[in-house]
């Protein structure tokens, strides 16, 4: 395991560099930030001063060498927009996204497992039909639209929840509910599918015939079988969330990394963009490794014969 981890970490370093280099180069393709940061009537002289001050008048390779030189000294540059160190801005925003994503995934997984199991107990029963329909619908509604409808109903009409912001526990409800729907919808279907086939396996039938209760069969036997595919899909969904719940963050004023990223893209704030991408890329690599480990553990328990 340790050997695997070490290899995995080493082999992940190069992609990290590739991501940052790619972002660095692509970002500079989107045009010169000077006109965004200078007054509309800026003179040529002011434009040239700006470019020189930000090092944007250098050839791309020189800029890149400077940047990576800085990164080695933990200097990620400064934001054009705010003048703050870019790394500080990214590090400040990331936990907000991480907390939101983690809470969302935990709730979505628990809810999906419960609903999926309930549906799988009687395949094609009423509960199954309803839950499949609801979960499919949940996974297919545009999130920004749902968020706005949610605000309209729960914050304006009913007045139960705050519209937006990060002001207290109840402010988490709408963003999480909005973010949760797609993972929940997808996972319900995965869990249900896996459970249905697990429940029809001979050894489950055996357990049942020995008089094990539904609850015991589900929790001790079938669920374990269903865990592997669910984990994988959940992992992919989590990666999506970590990469920034841009839309939800934008609407609810959530100070997360997704909002920071889109703002810095639109504002051509290159240093911040690079720092934000680096952080999320690292997080995604870590998450992928965790999923692998989780899967290896499950695999070892469930199917020891399959390759480790």
């Amino acid at each position, binding site marked *: 395991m340790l050997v695997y981890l070490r290899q995995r970490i080493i082999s992940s370093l190069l992609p990290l560099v590739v991501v940052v280099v790619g972002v660095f180069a*692509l*970002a500079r393709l*989107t045009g010169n930030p000077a006109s965004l940061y200078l007054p509309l009537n800026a003179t040529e002289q002011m434009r040239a001063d700006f470019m020189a001050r930000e090092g944007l008048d250098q050839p791309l390779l020189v800029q890149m060498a400077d940047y990576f030189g800085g990164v080695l000294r933990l200097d990620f540059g400064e934001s054009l927009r705010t003048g703050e160190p870019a790394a500080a801005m990214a590090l400040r925003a990331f936990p907000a996204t991480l907390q939101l994503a983690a809470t969302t995934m935990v709730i979505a997984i628990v809810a999906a497992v419960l609903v999926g199991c309930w549906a799988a107990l009687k395949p094609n029963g009423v509960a199954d039909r309803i839950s499949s329909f609801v979960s*499919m619908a949940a996974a297919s509604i545009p999130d920004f639209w749902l968020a706005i*409808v949610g605000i309209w109903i729960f914050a304006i009409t009913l007045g139960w929840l705050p519209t937006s912001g990060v002001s207290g526990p109840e402010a988490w409800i709408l963003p999480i509910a909005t973010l949760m729907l797609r993972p929940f919808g*997808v996972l319900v279907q995965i869990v249900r599918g896996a459970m249905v086939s697990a429940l029809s396996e001979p050894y489950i039938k055996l357990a049942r015939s020995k008089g094990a209760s539904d609850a015991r069969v589900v929790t001790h036997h079938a669920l374990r079988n269903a865990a592997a595919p669910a984990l994988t899909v959940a992992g992919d969904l989590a990666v999506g969330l970590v990469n920034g719940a841009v839309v939800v963050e934008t609407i609810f004023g959530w100070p997360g990394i997704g909002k920071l990223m889109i703002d810095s893209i639109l504002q051509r704030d290159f240093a911040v*963009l690079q720092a934000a991408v680096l952080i999320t890329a690292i997080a995604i690599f870590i998450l992928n490794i965790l999923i692998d480990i989780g899967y290896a553990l499950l695999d070892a328990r469930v199917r020891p014969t399959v390759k480790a």
Partner: protein
Amino acid sequence: MATPLLQPEGHQHSEIDRSGTAATHTPDARPLEAPPVQDLGDKKLSLFRLLLRDKFATLAALVLMFVGLVAVFGPMLVGDLATRQDLLAANKPPFSLDDGWGYVLGSDSLGRSMLGRLVVATRTTISVALPAVGIALVIGSLWGVWAGYHRGLRETISMRIADVIMSFPSLLLAVVVLYVFNPSLGNIVLILAITRIPIYLRTARAESAELQSRTFVDAARTFGSKPTAIIGRHVIPIVLPTLLTLATLEFCYVMLAESSLSFLGIGIQSPDVSWGLMVSQGRQYLQTAWWLSILPGLAIVVTTIAANILAAWLRIATDPAQRWRLSLPRKRGGRRFGTALKGATK
């Protein structure tokens, strides 16, 4: 490349069915262990008959067919209805025939027919989603199968490339493409396709890596078949159902992603119109003219659900180990999908 999605009874499946016949009567056997067996029975027809047995799946197929027809022929029928403006007749509520059938779904904020716009948007939406899914499917699958078959360095490098794409901000890609090129449909397709390649790549690789160690592949290898031949003849047919199922689900994802891009202002731009763009632009009228965003939203939801139902059905129908469920009255399941995805992150 997009045809398999529209025609689930297409020829690819006859090959899959071949591989499955042996397993059909032994439902608990692991399907992947069964080598493809030659059987040229008339599976095409039976797949269609199976479809008719499941009324939800039939309905779903009909819905998708309708959407397809609207996308192809609709814009011709509505003519200039979608672009004709009348500021004095803006935001007319739906379900009234006062202004004729063209305005049965009401009018938008510029007095254009909602029906006409929905129809034109159907074409745009489909012509973004289908090619995006198709391109990602073809590239991702072939690449993944190749990487999984050969394993070793090729596999590792491919997986790391997938990692790179997945952790790359697709929004930046969108802005770059919109900035350097033009916000045209083709470019949106390109962005969506590139960012979704890893999904197929990982799934195909996992399946193919497992397959290449199987005895029947080994056998083919010892008989001197070339890798491309083995991949084409033995690996792809078995992996395909999983990938097609995945592609159907991705179809929904791509529609939603396109609408999110519209929301952020970097997706499809006026005067083009897609369902996602309509939802996005209609959102500010939610309290004054709900139909502007609800109707296109409904179109997305209905199409997605139909695609999902059909995908769920398809993954059983094309899975030899599960197919027997369909011959029983009202049984559905989804194990294949689960096993297929399990290795996706490996």
